[in-house]
């Protein structure tokens, strides 16, 4: 549904997005990650046709966003960063305007608004003006506006920003449910969100694509990906380590800490992790080592994120002129 090829954006001499390509199909939720100032919002603004491209091409459902903007814009719903809305309008008035401008009218419009209001739980605030709403409600109004016309493409810039944990959970459920029939792009810097809802992840850093793959592949890039944490009842770690390192499945066993009667170890798999855990357990049983803790650690996404991206402190803020 969304094709971006070699998209660039310069503000004056400064390159904010330097040649990013990706595509999103129906049923996919693309997580768009990057540190603040990496060019996430700028890229989203180019996809939605708000900012002109300096070079490259973006199509939505086959329509070029620069050449057929109106047709392309008809196909997506967009929740911009901070969910802007006309502050002096009522929620009902704002949704009515959003529906009319998407060419909905009559019963279709009424149904679309009723559906969005129900999905976003806005029943109680319909007649309130938007400037009187809490941040959570304001975000939901923005989201309601984006899904109003049931678009095949959803583009959400930090959809859970400023929501409380319950609302976050609800928003994720909503996104997951919609993902079955839509192509969705979600930008975020909350990594748990990526694990929770995304089918694919791209990370950009300083305007460059540094990762494009599944959340699982991202986890595997973690420096401590899939190591085994083990606490054995033994007074000394050396014999345990020696025994474990003899196993073909084990690359290395490392001492993490020594307590009074136990030792904690980290065991790294050699190559594939297939029957790594069971081999370790079997060896422990055979040697009658008693253990009180044995679990597989998954790669921590924030570690991968930190290793792939650099701090934006040097680069300054994202290009809002």
């Amino acid at each position, binding site marked *: 549904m969304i094709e971006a090829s070699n998209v660039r954006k310069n503000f004056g001499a400064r390159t904010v997005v330097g040649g990013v390509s990706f595509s999103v199909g129906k049923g996919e939720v693309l997580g768009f990650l990057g540190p603040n100032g990496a060019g996430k919002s700028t890229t989203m603004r180019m996809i939605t*046709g708000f900012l002109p491209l300096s070079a490259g091409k973006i199509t939505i459902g086959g329509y070029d966003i620069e050449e057929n903007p*109106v047709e392309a814009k008809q196909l997506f719903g967009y929740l911009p960063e901070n969910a*802007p809305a006309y502050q002096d309008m009522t929620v009902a008035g704002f949704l009515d305007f959003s529906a009319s401008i998407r060419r909905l009218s009559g019963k279709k419009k009424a149904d679309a608004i009723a559906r969005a209001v129900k999905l976003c739980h806005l029943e109680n605030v319909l007649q309130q003006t938007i400037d009187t709403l809490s941040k959570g409600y304001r975000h939901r109004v923005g989201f309601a506006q984006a899904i109003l016309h049931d678009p095949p493409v959803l583009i959400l810039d930090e959809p859970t920003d400023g929501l409380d944990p319950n609302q976050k959970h609800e928003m994720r459920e909503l996104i997951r449910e919609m993902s079955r029939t839509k192509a969705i792009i979600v930008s975020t810097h909350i990594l748990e969100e990526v694990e929770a809802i995304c089918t694919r992840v791209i990370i950009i850093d300083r305007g460059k694509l540094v990762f494009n793959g599944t959340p699982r592949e991202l986890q595997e890039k973690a420096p401590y990906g899939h190591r085994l944490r083990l606490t054995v009842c033994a007074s000394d770690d050396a014999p345990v380590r020696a025994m474990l390192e003899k196993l073909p499945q084990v690359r290395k066993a490392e001492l993490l800490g020594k307590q009074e009667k136990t030792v904690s170890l980290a065991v790294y798999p050699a190559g594939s992790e297939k029957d790594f855990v069971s081999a370790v357990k079997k060896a422990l049983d055979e040697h009658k080592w008693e253990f009180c803790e044995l679990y597989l650690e998954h790669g921590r996404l924030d570690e991968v994120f930190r290793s792939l991206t650099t701090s934006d402190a040097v680069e300054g803020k994202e290009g809002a002129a």
Partner: protein
Amino acid sequence: MRNVLTIIRRELGATFTSPVAYVFLVIFLALSGFFTFMIGGFFLRNEADLSSFFFWFPWLFILLVPAVGMRQWAEERRQGTLELLFTMPVSIPEAVLGKFLAGWIFLGIALVLTCPIVFTVCYLGSPDPGPIATGYTGCFLLAGAYLAISGMTSAFTRNQIVSFITSTVLCLLLVLIGFPPVTNLLLKWGAPAWTLDLSADLSVFYHFTGMQRGVFDLRDIVYFLSLTAFALFVTGSVLKNRRA
């Protein structure tokens, strides 16, 4: 075209739900009455016409029309709704036209509300309806031109005050270049005659004075409409190139 109507409806709705509209209307009506009766000497003239009423509009509108137009785009930029509006399936010309027409309709309503002055002259005497009709047409066209100019300055900035001051100055310039004291000064400085003609031709004052006196000249109408169209065109180009 449907989008234009949708935008007009939204803008008018927003105008009339905010207190700004009512404050504007009250000030506008009070000032126009004050100028007509107290400074224009409506009664002293002892003539059943509205020239003392229409005469003040180029000046009155210099302050009041930018107050209507200044928020058009500046407010959208400040609130971030510009991003929302331009990522909806709306073309820039539609958005520019919709916002302009909504403001113009509002100013039209303000003009209609001055009708008691017409009833007054009709009650006091039997005025010639011609100059009243052309005078109101002139006021409406003038309001449109000023509004388009304020919309243009509004598109440049996210600050309403900057927009207000710039458009006021621009409108003032457009009046002054044809204002007799200024043209006389140019004459005294020995400016060639053709520059005087040119500056008078470009001036709002010159074209408005004709209509106010009841002269219906197509050139005046073309002047106001093309000034409006030009300002709207610039607005569109600015928005196209300076969206963020």
